[in-house]
């Protein structure tokens, strides 16, 4: 491969021929964290506490201490996150191959369906219909489910709980198995708070996306933003988790490279 390829990319980035799209939510205490039933231990929410701000605690400098769970904000799920992936090789944030942190992305637009039905489920039929228009999902690609959920800036609307639980769109079990077994994807990404639908605890099996993706050593991305700025195919996604020893996931600054 010629070295010119990278200089060409650098030139295109500088000249604007290649856009960099920020797919990340801002990490702040305002952004909601995942909620488990209260009898389970909870993911710590993202918190910032000032160490000093040009004051008596540190006259010339400003900095903060952070605390958060691994699965906070726009974040990466490693295979070890789920029990189905716990014994796989290279299944943690420190051992996953770095080459997989940069990969092509297919964007499935489910925004209209999700607007109509918060419990919308992406099926294998939807995926085949998408392939009829945009071509086959390539092996090793991220499949990103665009729902425009990231545009819900009100945390109540984003979480969308009622007394029967959370109502957010996601894939059904067959769609996940299709992507893993027949398309050999790298992983599945969503704009919602989980890669699974809000009601996925009631599915068979429960949480099919976590179960099948991680069981096959594939990855997850959630709380993505700006998927509406990406083309259906052709974008390259860059999402590298923090190198946490035996980590199950990590907040990421997810970026995409796209051409106009």
């Amino acid at each position, binding site marked *: 491969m010629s070295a010119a390829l990278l200089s060409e990319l650098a030139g295109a980035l500088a000249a604007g021929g290649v856009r960099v799209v920020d797919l990340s939510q801002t990490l702040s*205490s305002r952004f*909601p964290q995942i*909620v488990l039933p*209260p009898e389970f*231990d*909870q993911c*710590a*929410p993202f*918190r*910032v*506490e*000032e160490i000093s701000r040009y004051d008596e605690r540190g006259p010339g400098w400003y900095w903060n201490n952070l605390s958060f769970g691994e699965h906070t904000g726009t974040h990466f799920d490693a295979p070890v996150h789920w029990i189905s992936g716990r014994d796989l090789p290279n299944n943690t944030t420190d051992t996953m191959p770095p080459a997989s942190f940069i990969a092509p992305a297919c964007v499935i637009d489910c925004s209209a369906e999700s607007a109509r039905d918060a419990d919308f489920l992406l099926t294998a039929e939807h995926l085949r219909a998408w392939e009829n228009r945009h071509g086959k999902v390539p092996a090793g690609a991220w499949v990103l489910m665009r729902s425009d959920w990231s545009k819900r800036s009100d*945390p*109540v609307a*984003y*979480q*969308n*709980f*009622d*007394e029967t639980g959370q109502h957010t769109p996601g894939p059904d079990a067959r769609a996940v198995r299709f992507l893993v077994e027949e398309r050999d994807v790298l992983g599945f990404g969503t704009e919602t708070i989980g890669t699974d639908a809000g009601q996925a605890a009631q599915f068979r099996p429960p949480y099919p996306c976590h179960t099948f993706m991680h069981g096959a050593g594939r990855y997850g991305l959630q709380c993505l933003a700006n998927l509406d700025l990406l083309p259906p195919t052709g974008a390259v996604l860059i999402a590298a988790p923090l190198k946490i020893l035996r980590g199950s996931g990590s907040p990421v600054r997810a970026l995409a490279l796209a051409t106009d």
Partner: protein
Amino acid sequence: MTPALIKPKPRNPVSALRLPTLPPPARSRSALRLTAAAAEGRLELQHCADCGTVQYPSRSACVTCLSHRLEWRETNGAGELISGTVLHHSNELYYRERVPLRLGTVRLDAGPALLVHLQGDCAAAPSRVRVSAHLDKSGQAVLIALPAEDTANMADDPMLREMTSDPKFRKVLVTDGKPAVGQAVAMAMVEAGADIVWVGVAEPWKQAPGFDALTKLKQIEIVPLDVTDEKSVEELAGVIGGKVDILINTAEFHRTHTVVDRGTETARAEMEVNYLGLLRLAQAFGPAMRVRAAEGSAPATAWVNLLSIHALSALPSHGTFSATKAAAFALSQNLRAEMRHAGIRVVNVFPGPIDDEWNQLVPPPKLAPVALAEAIVAALRDGIEDVYPGDVAQDIVTRFRESAKVLERELWDQ
């Protein structure tokens, strides 16, 4: 008759803020026993175990028989006002701002003569009165005589109002209004005549039964407040910190976690709310409340902390929770010492198990959230500093005072 309190006008923004001054605080160690009883709303005086003499002021020996066997016991405050006077001048800054003051001498039916403040409705001497002990702005006991029978608007007397924190016409912040306890406290404040009740809500996406009804009351204003988030606490303090007269910290995280159950996440979450949450509130709201403690028409007056009777002695079946409440109790004692310089009353509430979802397996009696809220209102009205609401709390605090060690063992199997 005491004129009924009228809703105070807002302070003239260009007049200087009246700064807090305090009545003289120095008291002997033995006189602090009077204070300790007043903190729980009781009048206690020295009783001689040998001859039965009741004496005041306290001394190291009986004035009648010189016995040293003196016991502090609850004493009936009924008595006769034998003389009264009006104080027009004082060299103490605090009293100078509050003259004229009615003072008097009361002969208790129990024996001793006491120098007391006179509530405005007390008839001229000779007349029947009731003496009670109240904490003043310094947090020290002073004796006040009330008329033998309640009069209309009795609690609106300026001197009594100095020593109490009646929610009437006051602006109250309830830090977590979603759980049953927070809802009950917010409702009780509305019923007690509070002017505004700000109700804090964390994690607004979580539904809480009954909460919607609360939000419809005109005195209630829902505000975002998550005590685990420094920014959230500071932002709210930036908006209402200069207006809160009474802060009631109901924020609580409670799980049934023992110290040998795996993991520290539950303990950390409990500590974030129950201990660090209080610390964040104290730093964000404390200074502004201190400055406003003497504001003429509507001063900041009280800070209430929801603790647990197991702050005194741990309940192993709720091990990590007890530990956070003990930490919060220690913090609250320090907060009281800090707020004392302005005369803000810090009220600690030590309930037994509350009848909520985290005490499902605790056998009755359990304290209903409404009863807890009523106890908080009563404590504010009576100027009480330490509240042990309900039978379980009363029982445990009694046993704690008899023998902390015996109680520690008895709580092992509960």
